[in-house]
């Protein structure tokens, strides 16, 4: 491989978020902000038991309450064409059955919707929903992962079979080893925008929705399946969504219920989940208990790694994530065993939360690496360098690109790693103990399929269209940056239209794939557009036609805001308006599908997070002083938004490490802190300065723009970095998240 394949791209322009103006003026419309005449309001009434059957439900008072248009329950719900009442929803081999509100009397979890009340005003629907009363035939519920480990099973399908490379549990024979258990509680996405949908039917067979989804096409498909309608009869819009972090990666039962409700009342229906319902009805990061066995030679070469994880799913679906997968490829290690199990509980089905399984898994793996480094009396960075995987140990393939060592170096320099003491509890600042820690993150880099339509107008304005949407990372800004670079157009000449099924199909916003996928599609459509412009400009008799009658290529031209000019003679030029006029075209437009191919490489993004923090030994208070997050995410297309995304991952990781924990009272199977006052997330005062550093080297194989992914690695590895820093400060190893003051004082 020639070294010059890896070129440092020029420092990308720090362009401002292109939808910034809409967001700072309040004009950006999120799902519940859309205005429709005669909108009515829906509200979900939840079950008060965690398992059982609805014996009776009294909706009379609610129905007679003023302004109420309908109360939908399992007794009167319109029968959706696709809904059938399964006998045992938790049965394989389908990985369970989706939950459909109001399709049966069965209750699988606390606050599962048992009724949808619809009224003409928000106040009235809220009041009426309090009047619905139900009696239950209670059954014994289970919400405690620890108490249910005996029911752990391998998920359906080949992806989650036990994995062994070399000798099974080979760590046991190592000269130096550790065996430890780590616990991740339930964390809840809690985007600031609650789950919300507006639905409006035209006639009996056409529906338009504005909803909080990370993929409009996926939601369109779900509604199509539920109502047995052709896709083109369903329009799903979600241009702006107020964060999601994974919460919007599936169509939830409330969305189908709202579409059903809107049909029943024949009016536009708005349904917004209350914050409490955000904790009980739309997924979370599952509780996961993990065991790591890790062994090395006395000079710090890994001998064996065993990673077991058991996580909860719901009582009706199998939810899975790649919790143990990082352990297979992150380090060069001859003997690796991973086992992944799930346990059904009476809680709503989890859904991937930023990082997802890798974030949980990295807490265990990277904590264990720190523990073993300490036993070996090795610097944790040095320990990782000694076990760096130069090719993918899982499949033997070369990496398409890997600059993890550069990340270690950049971060160690920026945090002042040389000041770290090997011996914990020995660095002090007044009453405070000072600690340094680090953790590695990784996530698969992929390129999926996307179609982008480009339209160049006579005034040099370029419109890009794709159905992909933006939950916050800055997708439109990234697309603008790619097009601006290729077309020689200033940012303000480019408009991105996105987030609707009326636009060419794009991917789901998830799995750190959007820049690699949609950015590449923008790249491809722009290149094709440039060739089309060159063909028009090079036609016989046109301004830049070549004397030798060879077809003019884009490479012969300089593209700018005003038009194109010959590369060899800048005075030979044509404006876009003249070019279009000459060709009798109102606009030059092109639609192109673009996708990745299977490569003989293994592709991952990497991050290394360094943390400096202080612990007050008398109170156990932890205060983070400084975070440095470094990433190898390939080419950084839009520096400003990419930095924001990394910074946000660090903040999310701080929440995961130090505060987030949905506490369930297992006696009743219901959460006790399902509100933002009691479920703590980081606030401004919790967050120190966060420095973000990018290696910014192109991945030469994955896609034409050289971008890998950033969304997940921004968070994966942050929590262990903090746990490791707490150990370095205090000598106390907390293996159960979050690391709260009580745990630190008891340790």
């Amino acid at each position: 491989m020639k070294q010059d394949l890896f070129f440092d791209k020029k420092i990308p322009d720090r362009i401002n978020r292109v939808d910034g103006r809409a967001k700072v003026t309040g004009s950006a419309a999120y799902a519940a902000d859309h205005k429709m005449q005669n909108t009515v309001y829906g509200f979900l009434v939840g079950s008060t038991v965690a398992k059982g059957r609805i014996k009776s439900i009294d909706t009379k008072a609610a129905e007679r309450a003023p302004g109420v248009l309908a109360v939908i329950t399992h007794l009167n719900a319109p029968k959706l064409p696709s809904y059938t009442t399964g006998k045992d929803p938790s049965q394989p081999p389908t990985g369970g059955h989706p939950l459909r509100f109001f399709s049966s009397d069965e209750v699988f979890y606390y606050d599962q919707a048992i009724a949808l009340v619809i009224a003409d005003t928000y106040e009235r629907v809220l009041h009426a929903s309090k009047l619905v009363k139900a009696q239950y035939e209670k059954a014994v519920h289970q919400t405690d992962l620890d108490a249910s480990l005996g029911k752990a099973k391998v998920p359906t399908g080949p992806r989650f079979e036990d994995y062994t490379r070399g000798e099974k549990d080979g760590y046991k024979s190592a000269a130096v080893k550790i065996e430890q258990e780590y616990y991740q509680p339930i964390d809840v996405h809690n985007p600031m925008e609650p789950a919300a949908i507006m639905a409006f039917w035209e006639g009996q067979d056409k529906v338009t929705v504005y909803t909080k989804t990370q993929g409009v096409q996926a939601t369109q498909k779900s509604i199509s399946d539920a109502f047995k309608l052709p896709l083109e009869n369903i329009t799903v819009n979600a241009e702006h969504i107020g964060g999601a972090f994974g919460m919007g990666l599936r169509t939830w039962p409330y969305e189908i219920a709202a579409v059903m409700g809107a049909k029943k009342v024949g009016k536009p229906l708005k349904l917004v989940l209350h914050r409490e319902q955000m904790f009980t009805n739309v997924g979370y990061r599952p509780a996961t208990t993990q065991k790591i066995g890790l062994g090395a030679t006395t000079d710090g070469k890994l001998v064996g790694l065993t990673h077991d994880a058991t996580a909860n799913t719901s009582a009706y679906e199998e939810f899975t994530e790649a919790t143990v997968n990082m352990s297979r490829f992150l380090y060069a290690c001859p003997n690796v065993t991973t086992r992944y199990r799930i346990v059904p509980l009476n809680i709503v089905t989890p859904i991937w939360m930023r990082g997802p399984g890798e974030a949980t898994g990295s807490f265990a793996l990277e904590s264990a690496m720190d523990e073993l480094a300490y036993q070996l009396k090795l610097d944790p960075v040095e320990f990782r360098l000694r076990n760096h995987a130069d090719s993918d140990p899982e499949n033997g393939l070369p990496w398409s690109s890997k600059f993890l060592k550069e990340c270690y170096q950049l971060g160690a320099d920026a945090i002042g790693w040389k000041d770290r003491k090997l011996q914990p509890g020995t660095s002090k600042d007044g009453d405070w103990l000072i600690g340094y820690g680090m953790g590695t993150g990784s996530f698969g880099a992929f390129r999926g399929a996307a179609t982008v339509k480009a339209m160049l107008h006579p005034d040099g304005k370029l419109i890009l269209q794709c159905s992909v949407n933006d939950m916050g990372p800055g997708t439109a800004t990234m697309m603008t940056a790619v097009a601006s670079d290729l077309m020689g157009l200033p940012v303000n000449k480019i408009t991105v239209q996105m987030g609707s099924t009326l636009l060419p199909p794009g991917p789901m916003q998830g799995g750190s794939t959007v820049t690699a996928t949609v950015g590449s599609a923008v790249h491809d459509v722009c290149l094709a557009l440039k060739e089309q412009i060159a063909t028009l400009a090079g036609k016989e008799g046109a301004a830049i036609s070549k004397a030798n009658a060879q077809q003019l290529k884009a490479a012969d031209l300089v593209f700018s805001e005003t038009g194109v000019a010959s590369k060899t003679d800048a005075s030979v030029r044509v404006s876009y308006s003249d070019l279009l006029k000459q060709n009798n075209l109102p606009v030059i437009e092109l639609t192109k599908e673009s996708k990745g191919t299977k490569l003989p490489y293994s592709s991952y993004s990497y991050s290394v997070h360094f943390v400096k923090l202080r612990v007050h030994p008398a109170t156990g208070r932890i205060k983070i002083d400084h975070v440095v997050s470094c990433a190898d995410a390939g080419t950084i297309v839009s520096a400003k938004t990419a930095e924001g995304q990394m910074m946000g991952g660090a903040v999310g990781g701080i929440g995961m490490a130090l505060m987030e924990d949905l506490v369930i009272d297992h006696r009743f199977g219901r959460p006790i802190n399902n509100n933002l006052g009691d479920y703590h997330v980081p606030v401004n005062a919790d967050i120190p300065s966060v420095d973000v550093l990018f290696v910014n080297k192109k991945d030469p194989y994955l896609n034409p723009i050289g971008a890998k992914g950033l969304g997940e690695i921004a968070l994966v590895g942050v929590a262990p970095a903090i746990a490791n820093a707490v150990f370095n400060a205090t000598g106390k190893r907390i293996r159960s998240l979050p690391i709260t003051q009580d745990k630190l004082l008891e340790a």
Partner: protein
Amino acid sequence: MAKKDSGKDRLDENELNKGRRNFLKQSSVLTALAVTPTALVKAAEEGLDEKAAGYFEKMALSIEINGVNHNLSIEPRTTLLDLMREQLALTGTKKGCDHGQCGACTVHVDGNRVLSCLTLGVMMQGKKITTIEGLADGDKLHPMQEAFIKHDGFQCGYCTPGQIMSGIACIREGHANSDEEIREYMSGNICRCGAYPNIVKAIADVKKGGQKL
């Protein structure tokens, strides 16, 4: 308020309203407000006068929002947030939690930051409200709006209206003298995307600019 247009319903409503007025007469107004919901729930459960449960008297409200006077008749239970979002089409102000825990609904009332989800509309008689929609002067953005764009003080943008309203108030209150102080006085506004360091930079920048806000 939508009413079914049939003579029978009107008659029923008159009867019910009479009953409700009698009920209110028996208590002082304040007590009535405090006990009404429970009392009416009970009434509804007993099937006595279900419809009365919803027919709260409306109250007159004169309020100025972003320089526009509104003379309204609203239910006393309507929050300022829901009034603006659902009745006045001012959806720039966001609902994040409805419990005063997240700050997304922050607006200015006579120049001070207030959580509009914890504020009943009827309490705002004669007040001047400023929302995110009222900050810019035509096309010219408010310095805090400019600073949020420049420093990328947001990602998804949902908490941003509240952050900006809070940020302006934070400077006005004299609580933006250091990064540390800004962090403390901006901690009522949650940003789940985690743009906090950039929010602090934006506010510090505006404070340094010294413009009158």
